[in-house]
């Protein structure tokens, strides 16, 4: 395969749009994957995770962004749209466009959907219009960060509750880029029973999304956690995804050292900053540690497959 940024795809799903328009997305060539193989593995993974746990259904939080849209497409392919529930969980300040985009995905897939407005939950804690909520007066002035984390966890609570009524497992929708730099809320948006796309960089999510038919508007728009109006990932992080993905790929997957990365043209401050983000978020990617006391300790010297004979419900 040959081709520079913006000309990937072994499957004819190159991200070119009409002449004169911007390419659908920018794909660093070293990140280009065979989307057929990736799709095959991820769909098989979803089926297998559900089967081994004794479930036939799955559900996920559909934000209107590309990550959850891609997982919805993969899940619909894995278990059929009838066995997929997409839960839309807007807060009162969420962008109307996000909800619209999420509805487009639901319509396209023909899967079940629910809308749960999390505003009363969040406002019930932080308060609203100067009236304190369960969090007391102090919470009235809570930062974006606290509110954003709480919203992510309110959505987690909702999904895990619906998981019981729907009779399905929660599918994760976080990508590798955000996991590595820790751009997620612990026990919030990162909480799930399994995650099919957690080893795909954002650029690769875009590549597979284009190949599987995620609506173009969703692929084109600026990624955002939509936790407050006008928020975008790239503005918050100070990187574009293609740059960040390339750097992470060479740093982590290809084990390049600082000098080698600098020689490749990555700027020193970016390298330092990204390394720090990765190190500081290590805790978000691991199960909480347990003090070793007994002869056999889970995760240390009691090591069983998560799914084994007798593990299905």
């Amino acid at each position, binding site marked *: *395969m040959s081709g520079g940024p913006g000309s990937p795809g072994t499957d004819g799903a190159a991200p070119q749009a009409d002449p004169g328009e911007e390419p659908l997305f920018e794909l660093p060539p070293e990140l280009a994957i*065979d989307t057929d193989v990736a799709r095959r593995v991820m769909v098989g993974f979803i089926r297998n995770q559900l089967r081994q746990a004794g479930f036939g259904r799955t559900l996920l939080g559909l934000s209107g962004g590309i990550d959850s849209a891609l997982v919805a497409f993969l899940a619909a392919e894995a278990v059929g749209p009838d066995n997929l529930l997409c839960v839309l969980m807007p807060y009162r300040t969420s962008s109307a466009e996000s909800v619209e985009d999420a509805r487009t995905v639901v319509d396209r897939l023909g899967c079940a959907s629910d809308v749960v407005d999390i505003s009363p939950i969040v406002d019930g804690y932080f308060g609203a219009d100067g009236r304190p909520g369960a969090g007391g007066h102090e919470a009235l002035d809570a930062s974006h960060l606290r509110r954003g984390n709480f919203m992510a966890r309110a959505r987690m609570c909702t999904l895990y509750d619906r998981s019981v009524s729907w009779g399905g497992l929660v599918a994760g929708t976080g990508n590798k880029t955000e996991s590595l730099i820790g751009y997620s809320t612990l026990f919030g948006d990162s909480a799930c029973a399994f995650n099919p796309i957690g080893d795909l960089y954002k650029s690769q999510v875009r590549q597979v999304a284009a190949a599987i038919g995620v609506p173009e508007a969703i692929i084109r728009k600026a990624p955002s956690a939509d936790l407050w109006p006008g928020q975008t990932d790239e503005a918050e992080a100070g990187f574009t995804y293609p740059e960040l993905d390339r750097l992470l790929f060479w740093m982590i997957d290809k084990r390049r050292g600082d000098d080698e990365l600098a020689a490749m043209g990555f700027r020193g401050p970016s390298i330092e900053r990204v390394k720090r983000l990765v190190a500081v978020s290590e805790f978000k990617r691991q199960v909480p540690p347990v003090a070793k006391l007994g002869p056999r300790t889970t995760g240390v010297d009691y090591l069983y497959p998560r799914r084994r004979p007798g593990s299905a419900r």
Partner: protein
Amino acid sequence: MKPLRIALAQLAPRLGVLDDNLAAHRRALTEARAGGADLVVFPELGLTGYQLQDLAAEVAMTSDDPRLVALATETAGLSAVVSFVEDAPDHRLFISAALLEDGEVRFVHRKLFLPTYGLFDERRFFAAGDRLRATDSRLGVRVGIAVCEDFWHLAVPETLALDGAQILINVSSSPGRDLAAIHEVGLGTAASWRNLMRTYAQLTTSFVVFCNRVGMDETISFWGGSEVIGPSGEALFTAPLFDEGLHFVDIELTDVRRERIGLPLLRDERPELHLRELRRVLAERTGVGVDADGEVTSTGEPADGRGQV
């Protein structure tokens, strides 16, 4: 001469569910027999699944376990290679591959190289085998059996061929990874394996039979793509990626003779030279002096790998 019919049982074992996997092996044997197979090859740990961790001890069988013996009884008039966790008399656990023939367990190969790096953690749970031998078979030629990582070490195919094997059988549970568009079939693992098998077949002028599992254990997916390579290094058959299936491939054993006459690489091997130089290399690495015949003469400082005597 009647061709030899090989059946590749590219199965998706269920992790830790021995009874189901035994049943799947029996079904495949029955189907292979009906299809006229002479040799049926099953993947590494086909009877137990791969990512066992502490389950390994719970699914282990001795090589005379009644369940394995019962499976062997279904090989009348057949050869089959099956793989399981072997509980040795001293209770080391091995990843083993057994040659079952005419109703008996004829030969057991214990995996020699246990990958313990990257996504692998085999050495934590298993012991490494310490015998590398080809074996006679009812197929009329000697065969060499190896398990997965064994084939990432040059000495293995070479030794098996020198020991008389004309069919090198590798049973694998190779996890698919390194998805990149630049790789053949989009999978780095598959590209590497294909290179290895063609190279070994060519250099040993032997048939190479590769049976790799499919399905998933936990987070890893096994890519299948089982193959039969002829003694000239040419792929005679390649199974689909990721799909379960029983695939029949006919080979002509006379191809080995023709290839070895035309390209007498094995005739020209210099194992005595190899052995002598290996002795010297080993001696230098451990600081023991040797003479020109590789005999120990004195002890000294270990060489650092750069110097030369």
